[in-house]
């Protein structure tokens, strides 16, 4: 079956969207011509990141927040990421359980993704899948990261607004937060706020926000909100806060800045990935890699000169040639 995927996607075919996403996940070359065509239709969606420890209630919060956004008449795309097993490569993607009722809302598109070995709380193809949803016309795209703990910082590159979900009693006291985690949040959400200890978490976060110049930046003091997602409490306020952050980003030109940086990083990363893929394939297929590894292992050669030699051969950088000659 031949199909004009780009046209189908722009005309609203969820099936074409679904297949393109699979190709992106599989790094199937059929994806790229389609991406080239739909790219100019991207850049309209607002991208939210939802992150936090396992058990923080991210899926339920995503579900209820989506319902809140839908009541404003906006359409929503959700990318829910779960970890792949490093041993079997398989994954159980369970985030849809909490979002069952959204499945049949035509204004919502949910895609579950496995990390497939990628670290940082998202998968390698997440950025591309977000672009597909953007071109598909979703107004707001929510990326729900893996609940891997306290070092999911990759989301900051992808999202316009990042919400860090905390809960009382899970042992993720603010003190135990690794450096750099608090700084990723544009909005703090203390979920399950009907539990004992919620006010203490709020107080601790507020104190940190006040003290830390990396968190409280020019034009924006991250708000600390309370929600009880399972009882649908505090979601309207969360959406207002997101909207407020967005307004600030737009007014100050920071949204443009943020997106510029994102595009820069993405472009570099894509070039990096492609170069790496080509070089690796060539080295592997020719059997050269095996020989090189043997040489290094036997200490006949060292990996540093090999690196310079190979990159020098592939990319004719004058600097390299100068140094190796």
């Amino acid at each position: 079956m031949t199909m004009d995927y780009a046209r189908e996607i722009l005309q609203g075919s969820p099936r074409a969207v679904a297949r393109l996403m699979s190709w992106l996940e599989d790094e199937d070359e059929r994806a790229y011509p389609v991406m080239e065509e739909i790219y100019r239709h991207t850049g309209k969606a607002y991208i939210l990141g939802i992150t936090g420890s396992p058990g923080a209630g991210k899926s339920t919060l995503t579900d209820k927040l989506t319902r809140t956004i839908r009541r404003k008449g906006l359409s929503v795309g959700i990318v829910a990421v779960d970890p792949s097993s490093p041993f079997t490569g398989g994954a159980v993607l369970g985030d849809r359980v909490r979002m069952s009722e959204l499945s049949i809302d035509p204004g919502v598109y949910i895609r579950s993704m496995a990390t497939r070995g990628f670290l940082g709380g998202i998968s390698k193809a997440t950025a591309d899948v977000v672009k597909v949803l953007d071109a598909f016309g979703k107004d707001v795209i929510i990326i729900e990261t893996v609940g891997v703990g306290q070092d999911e910082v990759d989301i900051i590159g992808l999202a316009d607004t990042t919400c860090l979900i905390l809960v009382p009693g899970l042992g993720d006291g603010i003190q135990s937060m690794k450096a750099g985690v608090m700084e990723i949040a544009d909005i703090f959400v203390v979920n399950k706020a009907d539990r004992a200890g919620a006010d203490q978490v709020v107080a601790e976060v507020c104190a940190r926000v006040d003290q830390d110049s990396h968190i409280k930046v020019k034009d924006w003091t991250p708000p600390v909100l309370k929600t009880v997602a399972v009882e649908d409490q505090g979601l309207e306020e969360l959406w207002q806060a997101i909207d407020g952050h967005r307004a600030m980003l737009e007014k100050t030109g920071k949204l443009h800045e943020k997106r510029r940086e994102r595009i820069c990083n993405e472009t570099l990363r894509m070039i990096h990935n492609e170069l790496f893929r080509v070089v690796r394939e060539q080295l592997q297929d020719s059997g050269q890699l095996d020989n090189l590894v043997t040489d290094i292992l036997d200490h006949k050669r060292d990996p540093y000169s090999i690196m310079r030699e190979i990159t020098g051969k592939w990319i004719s950088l004058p600097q390299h040639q100068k140094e190796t000659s």
Partner: protein
Amino acid sequence: MAKKIKIIVAKPGLDGHDRGAKLLSRIFAEAGMEVVYTGLRQTPEMIVETALQEDADVVGLSSLSGVHNYFFPKVVELLRAKGLDDVLVVGGGIIPREDYEGLQKAGVNAIFGPGTPTTEIVEYIQKNVRER
């Protein structure tokens, strides 16, 4: 990147018996598949939308409350209506053998009754799943 089999494991209807569905989800993941577990109380529409959005290769249905004759054919019908003809549909649970033929006629590719070794189910899927 190696292609992965993506399978939806769904509990249609109001039946709460999910021991088998959860166990199989785990076994499928161990066999290297990416398993979207829907949880309970799925309508045929929910299951088919999920299969559509996830670009699922396989839909696995589990029912122990005697509603398979209604739900399984309905899921197949809706899949076809969405153009998802090449999705493999398999079912399990408490299903009398006399119902197998009717379900297969309705487009369910295979039924696995109680006591089926899970390896048999995994092998069946790996052998019969579509190319994409």
